[in-house]
């Protein structure tokens, strides 16, 4: 199971001539605001179609009609004006009434079962929605055939949950699942040298490969326009040459 994008073009937002994401990878998509990170995720998630004629979004080995059981995507906005409980959210969007033990261990969401979502704190809501997305494709994940896309999932998550959840994702990646996370927590790149990084700028992929080989402080100057003397200490990577 691989993801293969070809000739993707969305005016003023995204232009990707070719992108290949193999099974068993965890990719950090980074870039400035408006660089096209969310748009790329939405294209992979099937939410946006390319405007170009020869565009291809291929996910090998998965039949299109079963795609919703394999591919999930956490988007940035998940509010409801209706007073839904966490249990209802799970029932409406996943095959499970409660989170499987393995997910609950990491995100501790089953304790909120009867609570209304909008009464939870921002971080608690984010955990619930992350759990919801993973539960949607949980069966596929366990077979190592899940595609997990997350748009800024670390927002509002406290560090303890970030650590636990990322460790969990690394386990799932080992089993063959494809994980793509768009985020701004660049410090995480230093912690995960064997993950992939995909750097975006002006709707285009500027660099894509293993963090240990690609990522260095110069990237911050080049792709984020941060002057060298302003790069914070915690982003000086151990992979500096």
């Amino acid at each position, binding site marked *: 199971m691989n993801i293969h994008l070809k000739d993707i073009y969305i005016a003023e937002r995204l232009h990707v001539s070719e992108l290949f994401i193999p099974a068993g990878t965890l990719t950090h998509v980074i870039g400035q605001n408006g660089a096209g990170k969310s748009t790329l995720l939405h294209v992979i998630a*099937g*939410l946006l179609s390319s405007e170009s004629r020869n565009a291809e979004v291929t996910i090998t080995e998965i039949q299109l*009609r079963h*795609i*919703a059981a394999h591919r999930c995507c956490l*988007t940035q906005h998940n509010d409801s*004006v209706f007073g839904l409980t966490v249990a209802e959210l799970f029932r409406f*969007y996943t095959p499970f009434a409660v989170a499987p033990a393995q997910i609950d261990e990491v995100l501790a969401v089953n304790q909120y079962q009867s609570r209304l979502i909008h009464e939870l704190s921002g971080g608690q809501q984010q955990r619930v929605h992350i759990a919801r997305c993973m539960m949607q494709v949980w069966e596929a994940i366990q077979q190592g055939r899940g595609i997990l896309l997350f748009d800024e999932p670390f927002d509002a998550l406290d560090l303890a949950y970030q650590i636990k959840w990322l460790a969990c994702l690394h386990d799932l990646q080992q089993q063959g699942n494809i994980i793509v996370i768009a985020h701004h927590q660049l410090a995480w790149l230093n912690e995960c040298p064997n993950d992939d990084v995909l750097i975006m700028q002006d709707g285009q992929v500027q660099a894509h490969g293993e963090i240990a080989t690609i990522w260095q402080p110069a990237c911050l100057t080049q792709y984020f326009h941060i002057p060298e003397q302003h790069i914070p200490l915690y982003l000086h990577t151990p992979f500096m040459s």
Partner: protein
Amino acid sequence: MPVPSIQTAPLFIAIAVIVGLLGINVSLHSQLLSDAVEQHIFINLSLPMLMTALLVGSALAMSSAALQVVLNNPLADPGIIGISSGASLCAGIVIIGGVLPSSSLIWGLPLACFIGALLSSGLIYLLAKRLALTHSAVILAGIAISTVCAAALAWLYIFGDAQATRNLTFWLMGSFQHASYPILAVAGGIILLGIGALSYHRSALNSLYLGEINAQLLGIDPQRLTRVVLVICALLVGVSVSIAGSIAFVGLLVPHILRRIFGSDNRLIIPLSGLVGAALMLVIVNVNQLLNGVDLPISLLTASIGGPIFVWVLFQGQQR
């Protein structure tokens, strides 16, 4: 995909209440079995009235429950988003404008109302699409269409003759006594079809709570679902308005209260709204009959009974 089950007890309770209310109504006709006059009254007046009440109550409450979800607005009802005002305007054109000979009113009025409801729904949808198809845009468009329809209706009043305007006024306030069997046969058929169609989509509606994108991620086409549900609701509301006039507040009230008590699962809320809406209308029929001969406008009763209940529910807060 295993589907978590829903509680069914409220559905059976609602059915029991409806049967009970029907029983009470039948028992009001104490000499039903022995007296020929009483039988005639029951068969030709009471029974069509009960059937109208059941059909209209379930149609309005059920379509509102669905509209609230597709428009992502717990306050949506056919009145607020302007579907019923389109139907009312067409009724006005038919009654005051005298477009149709009175002999064809039986078929013409429901048809005109349905076309009116469909036209206004279509306009609302197009207008909302130009306003980027956000849910508040649909509501805004609905308010705009309602205002235009109300203005047009007011012009009709000015130019209509006295008898026709009086007929229209009574018709607009809602009544269950207009319906006869031929109308009911057609309207009932359409409403039952609409109810069936909404019930068919009740599971899919659950995926709209978090917005269109999250529905799409589950493999559902949210725009198509919204379009389909809007058309079904236009159908249900159009037919309801055409056989019973415009009835306020039931649509908003019933699903809103049920969601507060039983949660948001549409697999329960959609059918239960239909049943409770029907039961509520039966209560109103019974109240109306107990008032002996004074045929009060239905909207007056729904607002009088429903309003205080609504306030009470709001004060109760979340009951779960």
